[in-house]
C-alpha cells in the first residue's frame, strides 16, 4: 500500500516552486522583474517620507552562466526611509513579511517583489545578498543573508554596524542573479523612461553591464501627497479578510467591530446594517460560526446604504505632475492632461488620470503610442489585453479630428488600493465596466482639448498662409501696374496689407 505523505510547504517554498506567477518566468523576464521590484520599493521608501527619490541602479557582469544567460550583480541604492535594523533580516529574507498589508495605494501589494528577486538570485547563483540600510540614525547596518527556503527564515551570515558620520539615510540592496540582459535591455530602458514619466520628481540613474550610463533627471521637486492608510470598505471584503479581522479585533460586540474595522462605517450605518442583516449588535464577533461569517460577507455586499469609499487613501499623480512628466520624457508640442474624480469598483476606490500628447519628438508610426500605468508603475507587457487599449480602440477619434497617422501618445494611469489586474503578473488591467467608463470619459476630455488645439493651429496656419499670399502678390500687382502705367514709383500697398492683417487678427 503506497504511503501518501503530506507536508506543509513554507511561503518561500511556495513561491520558489511557482516563481512564474511573480514574473520571474525566464532569464529575460527575471532580470527585468528584479530591477523593477527593487526600484519600486525604493520609490515607495522615498515617497513615504515625501522626499524626492534619488535612485541609483547598477547592473554589472559577473560571468557566464550558460550559453544564453549570464551572472550579473545588481545593486540598487536609494535615499528612502531605510529599514529599522531589527526588521532588516525579515524584510529581505522572509517572504510575506512587510509593510504592505494595510490598505493604501502602493506600488507593490504583497511585499513580495523585492524578496522574490533576492530569492531568485539565491536559487540561481547560491550567493548571499547584501543589505545596507540606515533610517538616518547614528549607525548604518549591514547584513549578509540568505533565505532558508523550506523554513521561510532569513539566515544571517554576517552583520556589521558602522558609524553614520554623514547622516546618510536609505537602503542599498546588492545580490547576484542569472539573467539575459541583452534580451531584456529594451524593456528595462523603456521601464526607466516610463518610470521617469510618472515620477517626474525622481532622479533615476542606471549603469548597464557595458558601463553605459542612463540618467533621468527630475523636472520638479513637487511630489504628490502620500496616501493615507485606510480600513477596508465593506463592499470589498472577503471571507479571508473577515476571519483575519475577527482574529485580531479587541472588540467583543458586532457594533464596535463594524465601527472600528471598516471604512466609512459609523454608529448609524452600523446599526442600520445589523438591523438589515438580522445580527444582534451585542453578538461577539469571535463567536461567529464559519457559516455566519460567509453570510455576513454576503450581507455586507447586499446592503445598499454604505457610504462610498473616499479617495484619501489614493495618491494620484495630479494633473500638473503628469503634465511635467509627459513634457519631460516625450517632449511633445502639445499635451492635455485630465484627472477624473474618484470612483469605485467592488468597494475599491480608484482614480483615473489620462494625458494625450501631440507632435514634437513623438514619432509618427501609424498608430498611437500608448503608455499604461497602475499606481505609478509602467505596464510594459500584454498591451493588447489591457482595458485602456480596448477603450482607445473603441473610441471614435475622427470626431476629434484625430487620425492614427498623427504623432500622438496617450497616457492612462489607474491608481487604486486594489488595481484590478487580470493576472498575478500584474501586467494589464482587467476590463471592469466602472474602470472602462472612467478611462473613456477621461480620454474624451483630453481628446476635446487636443481637438481645440488642432483646430486652432490649423486656423493659425491658414491665417499665416493667407497673409503670405497677400504679402506675396500685392507687391507684384503694384510693381507690374506701375510699370504698365509708366509711373516712376509704385503705389503704397502698406495700407492694404495693414487692413488684411487687422482682418486676419480677428480670426485667430
Amino acid at each position, binding site marked *: 500500500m503506497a504511503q501518501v505523505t503530506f507536508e506543509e510547504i513554507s511561503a518561500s517554498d511556495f513561491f520558489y516552486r511557482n516563481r512564474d506567477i511573480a514574473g520571474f518566468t525566464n532569464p529575460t523576464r527575471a532580470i527585468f522583474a528584479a530591477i523593477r521590484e527593487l526600484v519600486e520599493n525604493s520609490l515607495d521608501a522615498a515617497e513615504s517620507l515625501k522626499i524626492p527619490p534619488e535612485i541609483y541602479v547598477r547592473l554589472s557582469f559577473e560571468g557566464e552562466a550558460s550559453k544564453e544567460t549570464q551572472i550579473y550583480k545588481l545593486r540598487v541604492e536609494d535615499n528612502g526611509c531605510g529599514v529599522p535594523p531589527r526588521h532588516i533580516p525579515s524584510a529581505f529574507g522572509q517572504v510575506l513579511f512587510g509593510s504592505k498589508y494595510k490598505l493604501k495605494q502602493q506600488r507593490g501589494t504583497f511585499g513580495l517583489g523585492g524578496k522574490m528577486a533576492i530569492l531568485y538570485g539565491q536559487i540561481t547563483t547560491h550567493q548571499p545578498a547584501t543589505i545596507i540600510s540606515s533610517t538616518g540614525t547614528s549607525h548604518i547596518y549591514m547584513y549578509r543573508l540568505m533565505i532558508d527556503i523550506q523554513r521561510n527564515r532569513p539566515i544571517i551570515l554576517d552583520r556589521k554596524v558602522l558609524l553614520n558620520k554623514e547622516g546618510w539615510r536609505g537602503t542599498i540592496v546588492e545580490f547576484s542573479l542569472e539573467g539575459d540582459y541583452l534580451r531584456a535591455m529594451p524593456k528595462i530602458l523603456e521601464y526607466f523612461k516610463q518610470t521617469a514619466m510618472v515620477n517626474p520628481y525622481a532622479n533615476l540613474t542606471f549603469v548597464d553591464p557595458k558601463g553605459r550610463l542612463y540618467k533621468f533627471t527630475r523636472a520638479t521637486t513637487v511630489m504628490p501627497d502620500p496616501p493615507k492608510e485606510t480600513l477596508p470598505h465593506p463592499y470589498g471584503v472577503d471571507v479571508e479578510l473577515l476571519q483575519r479581522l475577527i482574529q485580531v479585533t479587541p472588540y467583543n460586540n458586532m457594533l464596535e467591530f463594524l465601527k472600528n474595522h471598516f471604512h466609512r462605517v459609523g454608529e448609524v450605518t452600523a446599526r442600520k446594517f445589523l438591523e438589515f442583516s438580522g445580527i444582534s449588535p451585542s453578538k461577539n464577533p469571535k463567536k461567529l460560526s464559519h457559516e455566519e461569517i460567509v453570510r455576513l460577507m454576503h450581507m455586507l455586499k447586499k446592503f445598499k446604504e454604505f457610504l462610498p469609499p473616499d479617495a484619501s487613501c489614493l495618491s494620484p499623480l495630479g494633473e500638473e505632475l503628469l503634465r511635467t512628466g509627459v513634457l519631460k520624457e516625450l517632449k511633445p508640442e502639445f499635451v492635455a492632461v485630465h484627472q477624473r474624480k474618484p470612483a469605485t469598483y467592488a468597494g475599491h476606490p480608484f482614480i483615473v488620470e489620462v494625458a494625450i500628447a501631440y507632435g514634437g519628438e513623438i514619432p509618427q508610426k501609424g498608430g498611437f503610442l500608448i503608455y499604461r500605468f497602475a499606481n505609478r508603475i509602467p505596464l510594459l507587457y500584454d498591451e493588447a489585453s489591457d482595458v485602456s487599449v480596448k477603450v482607445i480602440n473603441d473610441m471614435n477619434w475622427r470626431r476629434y479630428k484625430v487620425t492614427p497617422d498623427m504623432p500622438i501618445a496617450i497616457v492612462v494611469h489607474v491608481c487604486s488600493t486594489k488595481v484590478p489586474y487580470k493576472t498575478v503578473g500584474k501586467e494589464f488591467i482587467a476590463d471592469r465596466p466602472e474602470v472602462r467608463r472612467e478611462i473613456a470619459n477621461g480620454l474624451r476630455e483630453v481628446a476635446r482639448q487636443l481637438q481645440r488645439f488642432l483646430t486652432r493651429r490649423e486656423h493659425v496656419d491658414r491665417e499665416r498662409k*493667407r497673409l503670405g499670399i497677400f504679402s506675396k502678390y500685392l507687391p507684384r*500687382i503694384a510693381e507690374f501696374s506701375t510699370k*504698365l*502705367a509708366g509711373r516712376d514709383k509704385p503705389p503704397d500697398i502698406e*495700407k492694404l496689407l495693414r487692413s488684411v492683417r487687422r482682418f486676419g487678427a480677428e480670426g485667430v
Partner: protein
Amino acid sequence: MEPKEYKSSSIMERRKEVLASLQNFGLKIYEQIDRGYFPSIEMPSRSTENIYYDPKFRQFILGDKRVRRSARNIRHLKPFAQLVWTALFSYELTSQRKTSTLRDVYYSAQAYEMTFKDQQESNNIITDLETVLGFSREDFNIFPEERSAVFGDLTIRYTVPGYEGKTLNLTSHPDGVMIGPALTSAEFVKTSADKVIAIEKGGLFTRFIEENVHKKFNALLVLTAGQAPRATRHFIRRLNRELGLPVYIFTDGDPWGMHIAMVIISGSANAAHLRDLTTPDAKWSGVWATDIVKYKLPTDPLDEIDMKRLYELQKDPRYKEDPLWQREIKTFMKIKRKAEQEAFSRYGLTYIVDEYLPAKLEETK
C-alpha cells in the same frame, strides 16, 4: 471693355490702340491701389450660360453677365497678379515688336517669379486679358504654333522690325507662305485675285498650286491645315473685308470638315469674347453630302462618333442660319457615308480642278 470692331486697315493704328488699352488697364489698377483700395476689375463672364448666338453678328457673343476679380479675395489674388503680369508682358512684346508663343509666355513668367501651374493656367489668363481688353492675343503678339499658309498674287508690306516697308508677292514661294506673326501684321498692297479659296488639307493645297488654280480661277489659296488657327481666320477676314474678296471653303465631306468651314464663317464659342475672327459671308463650297451622291464618290461609313457629332451640329444655332446646313446634315444622316477631298482622284488627278471646282464655285457664288 467691349470687343472692338476692326476700325482701321492700318496695322500701326491698331498697335497704338492695343498699347493704349494695356497702359490704361495698368493705370486703372495703379490708381485703385494709390487711393487705398484693393484693385478689382470686371469682365464679361465666359461661362457657357453666358454665351449666346447673335444672328446680327452671325457669331457667338457673350451676354450681360459679368464677373468681378478683386485682389481683396484671396482666391482671386494670384490670378489677378498673373493677369497684370500678362498685361505687362504683352505691353513689352507689343511695344518692342517682339512676338511670343503661348509656350513662351508660360516660361517667361518664371523669370518674373510669377509661376503658372501649367500651360493651361497661363492660356486661361491670356484669354482673361483678351476678355478684359477686347483684343485677341495676336494683337498682343502672342501666337500659337503656326501651320497654315497662303499662296497667290497678293503683295504685302511687312511692318515687323527689320522688314519694315519690304514687300513680298505671295506667289514667290511654291509651297506658299506661312501665316505667322510677320504676315499677320503685314499690310496689303495690291492683288489681282478676285476670290479666296480656303482648303482644309495640305495635299490638295499643293495640287491646286501645281494645277495653277490661282491663275485659272484668279484666286488666293489659303491652307487651313485642319481647323483654322485664329490668326488664319483673322487673315481670311481681312482678305474679305479689306480687299472685298469672296471666300470659298473646301473641306472633306464629313461633319468635321463641315465644321472647319463653319468656324471660319461664324467663329467658335471659345472665342465668343472676340470679334474680327469671322467671315460671315464666306461660303462652304464642298465636299457636301449631296456631292458624294451626285459625283458617286468612293466613301467610308460614318462611325458612331461622326453620327453623334452630326446630332450636335443639327441643334447648333450656327447651323440654322442657312437651310444648306440642315439639308447637308440630313443627307449625311441618310447616306451614313463620308468622303475625303482626295476621293475625286478616282476620276483622274485633275478632275477636281477641271470639273468639280468650277462647278462648285458657280453653285455657291
